[in-house]
């Protein structure tokens, strides 16, 4: 994973949860495009955190090759549904799988920057401890973080060690009686499993906002 800070002339700012489309053009005109969630809070400029996929088309370039001064085309910011502005009053539940943590991290950072006291929790699923990003920063943002490591756990691990299921959500999510505002982001399988689990806990489908990430990078 690598975080890139972009300087876009005329950038008018963004909302937490939005993404941009990045387009690369090779010397011979060949083009490739991918979407990346904005990792930064709206007050912190434009930063993307990119997961390098080995057989990716764009991510290996962004992670391995791109350096200061390089140029890419950016379209956006995009998104009016999967956004959190901080003016909403309901407690917030963030559920993230793998790189799905990026847009919800922007929300957690935004909340800290604006000094919001709206209760916010993050349920974060990763394969292993090495795959957990923003580890240290997450401890400083004043939100509860429930981590599950699905493939391997370090010695002495006391957190969850399985894929998100109804029981895990029952122990970590806000009770349905609080009508929380939910953001779920990750692969389609992750999102569907998490959303189904929350519905089983009595959550209303209308409270749950989802963003599915593709597997191609």
């Amino acid at each position: 994973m690598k975080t890139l800070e972009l300087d876009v002339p005329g950038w008018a700012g963004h909302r937490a949860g939005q993404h941009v489309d990045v387009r690369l053009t090779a010397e011979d005109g060949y083009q490739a495009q991918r979407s990346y969630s904005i990792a930064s809070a709206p007050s912190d400029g434009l930063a993307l955190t990119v997961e390098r996929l080995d057989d990716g088309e764009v991510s290996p370039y962004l992670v391995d090759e791109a350096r200061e001064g390089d140029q890419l085309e950016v379209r956006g910011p995009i998104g009016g549904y999967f956004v959190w502005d901080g003016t909403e009053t309901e407690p917030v539940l963030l559920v993230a799988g793998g790189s799905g943590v990026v847009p919800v991290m922007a929300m957690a950072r935004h909340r800290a920057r604006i000094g919001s006291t709206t209760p916010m929790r993050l349920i974060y699923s990763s394969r292993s401890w090495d795959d957990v990003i923003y580890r240290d920063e997450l401890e400083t943002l004043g939100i509860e973080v429930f981590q599950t490591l699905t493939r391997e756990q370090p010695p002495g691990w006391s957190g969850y060690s399985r894929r998100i299921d109804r029981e895990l959500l029952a122990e970590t999510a806000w009770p349905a009686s609080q009508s929380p505002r939910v953001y779920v982001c990750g692969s389609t399988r992750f999102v569907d499993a998490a959303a189904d689990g929350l519905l089983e806990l009595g959550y209303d489908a209308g409270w749950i906002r989802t963003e599915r990430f593709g597997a191609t990078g």
Partner: protein
Amino acid sequence: MVISRGFRGKRRDGPPDRVPPGQYLTDDFPVLSAGPTPHTPLEEWTFSIRGGAELVSWTWEELRGLPSEPVTVDIHCVTRWSKLDTVWEGVSVDTLLEAVEHDAAYAMAFCDGGYTTNLPLEDLTDGKAWVAFGYDGEPLDPEHGGPARLLVPHLYFWKSAKWVRGLELRDEDEPGFWESNGYHLRGDPWLEQRYWGD
């Protein structure tokens, strides 16, 4: 246009006599779809040809009882990837059409899930097309169109309709699912017939 220094992508060029213009080689087999994977139980599955003198239909067992053959072909997707020497097993469409009396010039392939694609009969006959049920020595995976898909490798791969259930013979060439929304009516990759007007 903004050039990104050092960007190349993972594309590979191939020999021009094998790889049509504007295409790149791939080693994997990208899964593209217009919708969810259908799952018709084989006991209910049929392949039909309608629009001829009589409706002709084969059950799965009947189709598998027809002579089939291994086929090694190059395939070309309009999204610009090409894969060489792909190995399939299937029944020639010629074999199926022999069972039907007709004087049609065109066909519309129809599939589980509602996908359609149109082809002139000339592109389906004389050893150019198959109903394929095997890929790479295995039963065709549902994600790649199993139990059976149309295989018409000399045209862009959107013509090789996944989850095919039959052909409707017609006198006129009418556009199918993609042909009615921008993709070329015929789709010859060597003439780069990708879109309307190409």
